[in-house]
């Protein structure tokens, strides 16, 4: 099926201080729909290559997870004192990434940020897939994962309930709630686009498949009215969850009295870090997608600029958290606290991870003070990749360096990850890629209906400029 591709001018250097347009050109609705649905009907060679790679990664994950469940988590490098390590690091990291989707779609929807319309679909899908990965780890890291459901409050015949004093049952509740709402929100946003796909599907089988998932959407005013109300309500429900999930996750650490965990700043600190890493992942996914699907007119410099500004803000807040927790450790005059923050982390066995984290999370976003760099796709991509690494290191440092040298010096011990640890991390990236590639292949990766309505809005308003 040949699709008329609207003419594009690739990233022209706009005059300084001129606001970036939110959309370029004035395509017709039909042309927009055709353009945005095009990837659904034909897969490129690049797609197949990446899909093959990510399938291998997924198989690696499957293999190592099976091995771990069969043999025991002794296959990992964990020990006493470092009883949590890669699995929980990965968990917190993926959960953090999962924050940006709902942040962008729900938070910004309520704040009336129009620019979100062209990127929210990607961000939401990313959230879902990141949560799938995240949910795997707490399950997998259990000594007896087959009893995971004991953490869920259900009326057991023995009358045993989870321990509500512990943060972990709350963690389970927070993550499952967030996942459910995110999934619903994503699906609700998809319905009109699935209907478009149904209407333009080239084969009967596809028409049928998209038809089932479109649930009879035909775009009447009545449906749109109900739809808008439902969407905003769900957004209102999802917005507090963005804040609560990572706050609860942070309590997994801060309710402990371990130096490095025992800190009241954790909830906001974790939420900020989560959104930070999530935005970085959005860029990592969006920039190649923009190029591959030629979305330059829909995802413009205005979007990149807005995301980069948000990242800079988050980076500064995170830096503040780093400074405050270190200061408080010193101010407490507690030997163990001071040792963890002032000796073990910057100069201990994992000092390299600490300094990588500091450079990537604190120093690198400072590039975004420059408008030119905020729209330079290479800089954006590399900085985002760096921030993702830095945020992973941050969680590793919080978890491992707090545990490996705690109160009694006699129990101090190094933690060294095994090949299984590395493979599961690599495999989870593979699974993420696998799911994401399936997503861009079978689901419209830009919210077509929202872009169309934005297009109309822009054509009606004389300024047609960004409000980012």
């Amino acid at each position, binding site marked *: 099926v040949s699709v008329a591709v609207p003419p594009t001018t690739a990233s022209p250097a706009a005059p300084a201080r001129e606001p970036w347009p939110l959309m370029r050109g004035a395509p017709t609705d039909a042309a927009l729909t055709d353009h945005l649905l095009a990837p659904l009907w034909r897969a490129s060679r690049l797609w197949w290559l990446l899909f093959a790679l990510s399938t291998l990664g997924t198989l690696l994950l499957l293999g190592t997870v099976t091995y771990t469940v069969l043999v025991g988590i002794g296959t990992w490098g964990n020990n006493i004192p470092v009883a949590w390590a890669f699995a929980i690091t990965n968990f917190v990291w993926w959960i953090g990434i999962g924050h940006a989707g709902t942040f962008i779609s729900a938070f910004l929807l309520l704040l009336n940020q129009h620019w979100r319309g062209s990127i929210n679909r990607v961000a939401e899908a990313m959230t879902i897939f990141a949560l799938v990965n995240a949910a795997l780890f707490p399950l997998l890291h259990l000594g007896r994962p087959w009893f995971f459901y004991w953490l869920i409050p259900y009326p057991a015949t023995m009358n045993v309930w989870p321990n509500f004093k512990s*943060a972990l049952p709350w963690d389970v509740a927070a993550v499952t709630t967030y996942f459910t709402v995110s999934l619903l929100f994503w699906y609700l946003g998809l319905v009109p686009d699935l209907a478009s796909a149904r209407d333009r599907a080239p084969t009967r089988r596809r028409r049928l498949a998209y038809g089932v998932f479109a649930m009879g959407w035909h775009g009447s005013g009545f449906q749109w009215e109900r739809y808008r109300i439902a969407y905003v309500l769900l957004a209102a429900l999802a917005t507090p969850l963005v804040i609560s999930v990572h706050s609860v996750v942070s309590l997994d650490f801060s309710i402990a009295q371990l130096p490095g965990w025992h800190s009241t700043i954790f909830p906001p600190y974790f939420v900020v870090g989560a959104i930070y890493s999530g935005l970085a992942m959005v860029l990592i996914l969006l920039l190649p997608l923009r190029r591959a699907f030629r979305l330059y007119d829909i995802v413009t410099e205005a979007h990149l600029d807005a995301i980069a500004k948000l990242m800079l803000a988050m980076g500064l807040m995170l830096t503040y958290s780093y400074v405050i927790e270190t200061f408080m450790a010193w101010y407490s005059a507690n030997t163990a606290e001071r040792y963890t923050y002032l000796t073990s982390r910057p100069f201990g066995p994992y000092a390299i991870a600490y300094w990588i984290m500091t450079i990537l999370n604190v120093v690198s976003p400072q590039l975004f003070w420059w408008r030119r760099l905020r729209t330079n796709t290479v800089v954006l991509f590399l900085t985002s990749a760096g921030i993702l690494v830095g945020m992973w290191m941050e969680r590793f440092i919080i978890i491992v360096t707090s545990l490996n040298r705690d109160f009694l010096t*006699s129990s101090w011990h190094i933690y060294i990850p095994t090949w299984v640890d590395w493979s599961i991390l690599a495999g989870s990236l593979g699974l993420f890629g696998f799911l994401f590639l399936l997503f861009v292949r079978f689901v419209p990766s830009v919210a077509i209906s929202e872009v169309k309505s934005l297009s109309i809005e822009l054509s009606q308003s004389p300024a047609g400029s960004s409000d980012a």
Partner: protein
Amino acid sequence: VTHEDDLTRRSFLKALGASIALAGLDGCNRIPAEKILPFVTQPPELTPGVAVHYATSMVLDGYATGLVVEAHEGRPTKIEGNPDHPASLGAAGILEQASLLQLYDPNRAKRIRLGSAPSTWQSFTTAMSPAALRQRVGARGTGLALLLEPTSSPLIANALASLQTLYPDMSVYYYAPLLSGASGTALTVDGLIPQYDIGAAEVILSVGSDFLAAVPFHLRYARQFSDRRRTPLTGMNRLYVAETGFSVTGATADHRLRCRPAEMESLLEALLETLAAGSASPTAVTGRSAASFSSSPWLTAVAADLRAHGGNSLVVAGERLAPRVHALVAACNDALGSTGRTVWYTRSPLLGVGQANTNMSALADALRGGGIDTLVCIGGNPSYATPASLGFAAMLKRVPNSAFIGLYENETARDTRWFVPSAHYLESWGDARAYDGTYSIVQPLVQPLYGGKSAIEVLSALAGSPSADPRVGVKESSLSAGVTRDDDSWSAALRRGFVPTLPVARVAAGPRPELLRLPASTSGPPGSLDVMFDRDPRVHDGSFANNGWLQELPDPVTKLTWDNAVLVSPDTAGRLGVANGDVLLLRRDTRTLRMPALIVPGVASDAAIVHFGYGRTGGEEVAKGVGVDAYQLWPELGAYAVSGISVERAAGADHHDFAITQTHWTMEGRDQARSESLDAYRNEQHGAESQATKPSRRQLTIYDPPQRLESPHQWAMTIDLGTCIGCSACVVACQSENNIPVVGRDDVAKSREMHWLRIDRYLEGPAENPRVVTQPMLCQHCENAPCEYVCPVEATEHSPDGLNEMIYNRCVGTRFCSNNCPYKVRRFNWFDYNAHLSETEQMAKNPDVTVRERGVMEKCTFCVQRIREAEIDAGTSGRPLRGDEIKTACQQACPTNAIVFGSLTERDSEMMRRREESRVYGVLSELGTEPRVRYLARIRNPNPQLEDGR
């Protein structure tokens, strides 16, 4: 069809019942056929589920230690000390306790063989019967030789005597690698051994002796020593140690001098001169080495202190040091007037001691001469545990008719014609004498699991009566110890496990000018190492190398597991340019040895310690590939301190990774293990600010205090760091009592050892010669337990009597509890460590304690099974339970009584009395955990003339 019709429901149930009963019978047939008697009260019958205790003895290098062994349904499950036996006093050492696992070792030899073909006991006894053997060795037995482990057994002595009547010209040799001097143990020129009264000594100088942990009577000595330290303010003793390596005794010392082996001799020479200077008849010391110590302030202060306490002082020498050292020490004790008061001499009960024609050199000479046709080796492992330069293995192979009776098909078994599995001591009848001569009985608890034969059965077979009843033999030989022929007397002896006798006669040991005149030993040339070849604290001479409990037990000083190493001081390592794990090449004459270095603070400069017992190549699977065989470098029998061994970094050698349980040795300025000097402590009693008695910070909290618990007993423990010597007996006791799995070298290297109780060892002061504090660390049973509130499934909870309980079958394994435990005493089952236990190893498990599965957390329970058993027992007999009736396994094994357990509600108990001392404190109690385990700060008693600890 009719068949099935015949099988009615009733008959089916009958058949089922019968087969279960038969299966049950089959499972219980391990009780010896002979009548054996329980320790205190004989039950009317064996009650399933109720443990029975039997007294027996374990013999190590010839000397017996009295034990009480717990048995469940006929299988021994736990070895404890016999409270009445003089060598035990209720405590048990690590080897005694771990010998239980040896009993069940699936690697133990199971078949008799001739050459490589399977054979039978019948064939062996026929071939070795006098009728057959006389053909080979001559009518007078000229060609017959026996090689035994050192033994003090009257039973063996009788058997040998009767064998001697059959074969008047046969020769008998005794060998143990750690007692291989010219005449067995050192200072036994006349067959004499020193006996100490450590409790009577105010001031003790130990020169290279690990008398608190590594000599035959160490459990008793440790008790006597610690009794003088229990209440520091009244009559505390003082211990000086001069040694090359770092021993348990050295770590306990108030002052420790590290010196090379030859320097120990110079030190004693200078001491003797100083002491003799004031006496009427100065002892002449000739053949002096360099007088490097005459002006040493250390020696001056020590000599003055020793002399000030006259006869209440004591000098002790390491049992494997040169005879001249022992002569010097004896002379020092004479000069101090201590001889007869804190030290006296008795005749060694070991057979053949003091006779040069019974030692290994004599056997080697005889083998070289070729006159031996038949050599029967009973026990030991001479092909492995002899200096490689002796070439014993090759000589043994050339013996036409050789036999080896051993627990394992080890290195020696490969070199002999016959091999017969030997019975474990828990499977055989026997007897032996303790170090002080006490007659002790070895009583079997099970029939031989693998058909092994005991030494006495083999000797009887040689004498032509293979079916002689060993029990009758023991009964006969006990007559010599004062047991009478009437059954009550015999029963009483069996129940007690030994015969209390009058002290063995003291023998005067005169001065030995001839020994003093011997040339003094010298240190090696610069650049070389003086190496002490030493007993390994865990596997002894290698005979316990196949024991997982011992391999995994951290060395009391180095915390090394599953390995041995060249132990060198930091300065020597610096000189050699080596780091931990770098492989060294040691060379002595033509012999070389590649062995990794381990840097241990406190070892003498330019000296090294090398432990025997590793690098095994026999049929023992656990021991295989562990460590390096130091016997390969051992130059000659009897020489344990060898100077002038050249050393260099081995070219192209791989780095060796050690599995060490404690990798950080300092406290980083924290105060978890508190210690201070006696003077400071005394001042504190008068109100001065202190380290040991500093009050716990008051808890300011917005939360409610821990819930008051209602039970009449509130369990708690007090541990006295002042008497803890770090010997690690408690660790093995806990492992045995609580079914703690062995995880293996790789997992220990990953810090996954499962010990519920560990001994933390902290060093203070300069790395060259640090002070040591050892601290048993176990679950503190916090009233405000950090582990409890973080568990998402309530798998760890508090009991009404104050125990922090672990509910294994509720645990899902999040490990949050361990993360939040500030003491890091929780242990996790990373794998299914119990999955591959052999049938016999399963029998070693304590049936009162759950065996944990993969993926659950575990930790110290305060031996809850013992608490509940005592409660039930008291409940059924309707009497109130006293908290101090219960002894935890660690408390029971502790030779120094450093650990006491009891109830907080019983204010008159020993546990509570100790808590009233001002030096009591809770580790990390500033966290608000309210630990139920409290520690008493260690008080040192330094000489004010010297720097504290050095």
